[in-house]
């Protein structure tokens, strides 16, 4: 090892001591987040390139059989901590528990799903290890020679892809956008190692969770945008809440769900958790139908992995047509009403 001068706040790291790909597996109310399962699939791919194992990290209280799930989705090993002190989610406590595991096992890569909680945890973990971290990656690869993680993230509005690397520090941490990778199949015949670790050297909690409350949503009979196979998306060309209602009707007729551009959620026509695009959600449905969506680059960023893109817009010069498989140039109301009629006549019992 060459002794390059580094910041005295940083521990010296011997890169060759760090081996394996880790996924922090986030769960809530006994259910693992899709983003974490998707990352196990990607981790498998990276790990096989450099011939190492995939470990899933789980922490919490009363985890039960949930700790077996990562194995079914492709992990070789689950390392978990089950402790009453973790029954309440306090960010710096959870992050410190992960830091302790990393210091013990020394993985070379640690991945987090970029959920709201994942984005909160990952930078504290990375910083406490004085390691590099890249946020909201949309692709990952690994350099077989240097074992450097190639972390791809859109930047400056999504029109540029930056490849970030951390050549001299380990581990390499990244948070990855949910739904950019597919969920691997669940195979209950897969076998793996399950290791229980105990909690130690944690900072004082300094905080207590006083309560959790769920909010009810008006559009709650429709699935969230990231879960549906077909997403009808309202853009600014849809002139108000009434127009959005018409699109909800279309979404229901097609067995899909409703989403909106930033303009639409900013206007309050749909809740912000239905916002699609760079500052909202990334989706990869089978069919995306953009209605009155102009196609700003920030929105395209969130839909470009869709299998089929349909655009309905009265402006023939709308940029979205450049990204569409099928486009209809028409007033949106007329087109949507016609679509509803065609669907009704098709499905009329004969």
């Amino acid at each position, binding site marked *: 090892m060459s002794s390059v001068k580094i910041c005295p706040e940083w521990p010296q790291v011997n890169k060759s001591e760090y081996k394996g790909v880790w996924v922090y597996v986030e769960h809530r109310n006994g259910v693992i987040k899709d983003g974490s399962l998707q990352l196990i699939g990607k981790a498998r791919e990276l790990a096989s390139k450099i011939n190492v194992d995939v470990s899933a990290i789980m922490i919490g209280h009363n985890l039960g059989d949930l700790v077996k799930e990562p194995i079914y989705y492709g992990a070789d090993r689950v390392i978990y901590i089950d402790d009453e002190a973790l029954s309440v989610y306090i960010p710096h406590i959870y992050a410190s528990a992960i830091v302790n595991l990393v210091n013990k096992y020394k993985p070379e890569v640690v991945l987090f799903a970029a959920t709201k909680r994942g984005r909160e945890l990952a930078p504290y973990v990375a910083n406490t290890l004085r390691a590099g971290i890249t946020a909201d990656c949309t692709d990952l690869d690994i350099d077989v020679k240097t074992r450097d993680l*190639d972390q791809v993230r859109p930047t400056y*509005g999504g029109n540029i892809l930056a490849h970030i690397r951390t050549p001299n520090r380990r581990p390499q941490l990244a948070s990855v956008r949910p739904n950019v990778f597919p969920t691997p199949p669940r195979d209950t015949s897969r076998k793996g190692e399950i290791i229980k670790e105990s909690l130690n050297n944690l900072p004082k909690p*300094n905080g207590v969770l006083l309560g959790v409350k769920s909010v009810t949503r008006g559009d709650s009979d429709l699935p969230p945008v990231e879960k549906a196979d077909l997403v009808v998306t309202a853009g600014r060309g849809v002139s108000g809440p009434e127009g959005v209602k018409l699109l909800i009707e279309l979404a229901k007729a097609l067995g899909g769900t409703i989403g909106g551009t930033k303009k639409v959620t900013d206007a309050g026509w749909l809740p912000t*958790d239905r916002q699609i695009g*760079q500052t909202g959600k990334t989706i990869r449905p089978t069919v995306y139908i953009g209605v009155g969506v102009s196609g700003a680059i920030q929105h395209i960023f969130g839909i470009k992995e869709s*299998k089929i893109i349909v655009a309905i817009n009265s402006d023939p010069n709308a940029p979205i047509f450049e990204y569409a498989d099928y486009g*209809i140039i028409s007033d949106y109301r007329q087109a949507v009403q016609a679509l509803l009629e065609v669907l009704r006549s098709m499905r009329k019992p004969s």
Partner: protein
Amino acid sequence: MGATVISSANAGSNMGKELTIIVPVKAAVPNITAVRLDPVTHNLVREGVPLMLNPYDRNALEFALRLKDKYGGRVITLSMAPPSGKDFLESTIGMGADEAYLITDRVFAGADTLATSYTVAMTIKKLFPGFNLVVMGEETTDSTTAHMPAQVASWLSLPYLYYVVDGEVNMEKGTIKLTRYLEDEGVYEEFEYNMPVIVSVYKDSNPPRDISLNRKIQAKLSGLVKSVTNNELKLDPLCVGLRGSPTIVAKIEDAKPIPRKKQIFKGDPREAAKWLIENLIKEGVIKP
């Protein structure tokens, strides 16, 4: 305007019971589609680029000002930026901050989030050791990492909480009740923390008040924005800027879209609807 001007770097030493809120802000690039990148480092070329206050930092400042309105105390903004950053910091005073600090030095240039958070955290520690709260925006609109609040918390070994919408201070107990919203779960959570604590503010909460031009001009005339360089901060050059940054931008490329069929129908909406449904059936994505 009763803004107290703090003139020395020992400002924090005589801090008592007064609620002291630090709001680190960022000079974001306004038009993210028209940026220039350095061909060698791939970092953003900031020279000659007009700077504006990151929009979500205004919600953070609003949250801090609401606490000040209710409990008294003072709100101090600070930012690591080129010398031209003075102007957007004056805007934070125009909004209601008492004073502002511009952290500016060539040695801080080219920093990734680890080095930036180190610089910000150490500045807070040196200038305002008695602070109660650090409040930041949820993320920036130009680089969107949302790293800074957690990283600053880590450097200062303090608890932290993201996506906060509301806060209630108890100065006697030295605690704060925080309500936060997790957008992807549709869940509100309430926490109680001992201060000091680091928070980020949910971007769709605390709609910001207007910037008073009068106050902004006053800030300029009274020199309420102070500059701090590494002469005062004395941070190890190995820990800041490019050298204190473990990550590098190895390569940049234009985002390329997946090739699309681009079949466009123009004409009678009924015909268009039939044409589209037929094609979607042919693709096997909807059932006849």
